[in-house]
């Protein structure tokens, strides 16, 4: 069969301005995806010289009839099993498009490969066998296309030759699939009757389908458009890394939406810090004075030294929300079902954090469209979940920004699922727009002039009985007697009041530390030295406290050996824990994660209280918190 487009490939040199559209062909196993791909390559003149002949010869040698799908099934293992097992990328041209074709397997076993392929696509072709009609995998793939954000879907009804090219059968299946897609919010761009094996409807309307007046497959592909970068939305620049290869401190990342230019005022979320872009860095030419848009990988320097890290999102006046709670619609690919209470890792852009599945509010087998209850999401099923995050993240609802509103879930270091952020729900948190912080009327210099020190958070961490409270009290006395303003924040004391709603689960411990850090940081920003004595066993919780305290934070590791701590047992906790009356007590039942980057380490089995306080005071002096020349500074005011 000769088709008009067959010599287009050789007609002109590849022009870079032709729109390139990445498409995926999906559908139930054996409905003819690979055959359609093989046929499309042939009809568009895209096969390398000799490939068709070579495969025909191989088929003959094996005593098998030639199949178009052999073109794709280049792997030995695939031919042995008769199934396409992975995504391949093949290119061909329609009259006005360069098509990158991503084949995706239909076998349920390989849904992860279908998702890998389809996630890269601008558009999809959903293929349905005219004999079999809409099957479970047809529905599953349709549903996943929707979740993956593929908005353009063309339907082809294949193997029309097997139903005598009957228009009635075509109409029946068209109605089925249209109704199904409408339920999940997808409108097909075309529904085309074809025979991939014989060629009807692929590149030409043959007499067999004379009753059909719509586009051929090639024509349908020719109307698809590439997905556009989100230029019109608000700026979102997730931070990939901070580089200091030379004297520049470059914040690197890819602009996911919006644009930026040197001089812009920016907000860094989730902390909500403000800065200005000093330069846009590049190589070999740098700096760049031009505006940088969505899709570009950039590097920027800021006008001030701020603590920021991988996973932060840089924005303009309309920042993403910061939250520790997300509601998401996820698809699940892991062998073991996802259950409420599961510990997972969530990756949202460049941010990753430990998280807990708080609840599953709905679970569905998209192949059957039946609800499967709310206790778990099985492999290859989808569901809605509430997630509690160990660290605050910046995120948008998917409906507002597709790039910063999607996440993946990792289990055991391997991607196990993905999904869309339905809502960013801080629950008890007030909308940022309603919060107008009132800054103090006193300047930092006024305060430090009076106290002889700048504000700081002294964070004493260590096992129960290590001597944290004793050191804290002695330090408080020392600083006070030299005219300073120390304030003691003891973990247990705060639990009696401010934190009385918290218990000892991992989540509550994290929240306890967060509140301590917030209070301490507030005091420190107002010139006081907040002395926190808290076991704070989790390195991640302390890292969060450091983020909150930022440059005012000083960590002191009270590294008294465990056996010494237990022999002291000032509160009788070790004895109770040994007697089994204190579950989850740090020091016996739980792991304490020792700090690796503490500003100071003190072992109170080797240093007296006075020596320990001396050590802390020296550290405060050398890092500029406590002034050695008190009077001189006071005179400068």
């Amino acid at each position, binding site marked *: 069969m000769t088709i008009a487009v067959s010599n287009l490939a*050789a007609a002109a040199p590849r022009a*870079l301005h032709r729109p390139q559209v990445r498409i995926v062909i999906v559908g139930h196993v054996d409905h003819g995806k690979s055959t359609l791909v093989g046929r499309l390559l042939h009809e568009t003149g895209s096969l390398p010289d000799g490939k068709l002949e070579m495969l025909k010869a191989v088929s003959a040698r094996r005593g098998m009839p030639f199949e178009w799908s052999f073109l794709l099934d280049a*792997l030995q*293992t695939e031919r042995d099993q008769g199934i396409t097992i992975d995504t391949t*990328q093949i290119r061909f041209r329609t009259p006005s498009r360069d098509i990158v074709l991503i084949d995706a397997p239909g076998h349920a076993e390989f849904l992860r490969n279908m998702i*890998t392929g389809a996630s890269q696509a601008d558009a999809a072709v959903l293929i349905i066998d005219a004999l079999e009609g809409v099957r479970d995998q047809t529905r599953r793939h349709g549903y996943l296309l929707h979740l993956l954000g593929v908005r353009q879907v063309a339907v082809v009804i294949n193997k029309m030759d097997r139903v005598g090219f009957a228009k009635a059968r075509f109409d029946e299946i068209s109605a089925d699939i249209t109704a199904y897609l409408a339920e999940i919010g997808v409108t097909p761009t075309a529904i085309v009757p074809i025979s991939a094996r014989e060629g009807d409807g692929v590149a030409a309307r043959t007499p067999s389908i004379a009753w059909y007046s719509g586009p051929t497959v090639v024509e349908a592909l020719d109307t698809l458009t590439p997905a556009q970068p989100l230029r019109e939305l608000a700026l979102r620049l997730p931070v990939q890394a901070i580089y200091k290869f030379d004297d520049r401190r470059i914040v690197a990342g890819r602009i996911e939406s919006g644009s930026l230019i040197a001089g812009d005022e920016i907000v860094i979320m989730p902390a909500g810090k403000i800065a200005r872009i000093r330069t846009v860095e590049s190589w070999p030419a740098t700096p760049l004075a031009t505006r940088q848009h969505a899709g570009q990988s950039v590097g920027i320097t800021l006008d001030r030294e701020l603590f920021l890290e991988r996973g932060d999102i840089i924005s303009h006046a309309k920042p993403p929300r910061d939250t520790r709670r997300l509601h998401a619609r996820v698809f699940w690919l892991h062998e073991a079902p996802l259950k409420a209470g599961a510990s997972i890792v969530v990756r949202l852009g460049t941010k990753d954090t430990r998280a807990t599945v708080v609840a599953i509010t709905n679970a569905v087998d998209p192949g059957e469209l039946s609800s499967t209850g709310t206790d778990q999401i099985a492999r290859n099923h989808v569901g809605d979940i509430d997630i509690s995050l160990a660290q605050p993240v910046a995120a948008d609802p998917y409906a507002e920004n597709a790039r910063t509103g999607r996440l*993946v879930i990792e289990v055991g270091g391997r991607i196990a699922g993905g999904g869309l952020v339905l809502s960013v729900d801080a629950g008890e948190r007030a909308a940022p727009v309603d919060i107008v912080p009132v800054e103090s009327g006193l300047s930092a210099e006024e305060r430090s002039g009076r106290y002889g020190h700048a504000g700081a958070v002294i964070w004493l961490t260590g096992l129960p009985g290590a001597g944290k409270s004793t050191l804290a009290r002695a330090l408080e006395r020392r600083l006070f007697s030299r005219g300073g303003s120390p304030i003691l924040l003891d973990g247990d004391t705060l639990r009696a009041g401010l934190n009385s709603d918290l218990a000892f689960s991992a989540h509550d411990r994290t929240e306890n530390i967060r509140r301590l850090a917030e209070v301490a940081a507030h005091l420190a920003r107002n010139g006081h030295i907040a002395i926190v004595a808290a076991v704070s066993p989790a390195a991640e919780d302390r890292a969060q406290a450091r983020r909150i305290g930022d440059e005012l934070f000083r960590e002191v590791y009270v590294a008294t050996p465990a056996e010494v701590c237990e022999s002291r047992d000032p509160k009788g906790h070790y004895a109770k824990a040994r007697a089994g009356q204190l579950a989850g007590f740090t020091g016996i039942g739980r792991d304490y994660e020792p700090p690796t980057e503490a500003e100071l380490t003190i072992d109170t089995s080797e240093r007296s209280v006075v020596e320990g306080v001396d050590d802390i005071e020296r550290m405060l002096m050398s890092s500029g918190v406590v002034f050695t020349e008190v009077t001189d500074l006071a005179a400068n005011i």
Partner: protein
Amino acid sequence: MDHLDELEAQSIYIFREAFARLKKLALLWSLGKDSNVMIWLARKAFFGKVPFPALHVDTGKKFPEMYHFRDRYSAEWGLDLRVEPCPPIGAVDPTLPPAARSAARKTEGLKDALAKYGFDGVIAGIRRDEEATRAKERVFSPRGTEGGWDVRDQPPEFWDQFNASPPPGAHLRVHPILHWTETDIWAYTKRENIPIIPLYLAREGKRYRSLGDKDITFPVNSDAANIDDILRELASTKVPERAGRALDHETEDAFERLRVSGYL
């Protein structure tokens, strides 16, 4: 952004993800057009500096022009060059056909380098359009402790989220230019003015389209005297890029067998 800008931005993103998430990276520098583009992209990603070693797994059988190129540009580009020699042919699977067996030396050399330096990530310049089995690759592709590739058990990879936690003793292959084509490579080489080995340009009616060991790599017929000529040639040719690479054509599955055991 034009097509090349998009490809470049995506590759830079992959480089930065690899550098952020893996501890000890190396970039495989084969000296060919693809790995030179890759080094260029790494310099873009890291503002002029390549912050990990460039590893040349040396069969000792490259063309003299290639060694000359390596020594000149490793200095000029400020690379931390590590050259790893390959074991003799006797150390390689004797059931492979001759050219594949010769190429498999490179796999063994790479395994030696991995053991010696303890790299947990190896950046390689393969492309999906080169060869059917490469089309099935992930951007972050886990390898077993023996360096093997299990094509049937590849983890899902979507939305630029990569699986970057290789089990102890295993490593990851990272493929920053997987989505590029041969035409893209040449168009970008021209736009960015990236140096190339002159063997790619025609002399006496023949040029090399792909460079490997001199005893198993052959030139193709061509009159392309510069990159523009190459781009025009690629627009009309239907000859596959690796036509001059003997190991691809020995048996139906020779290349696949090489890849499963850790070849690029």
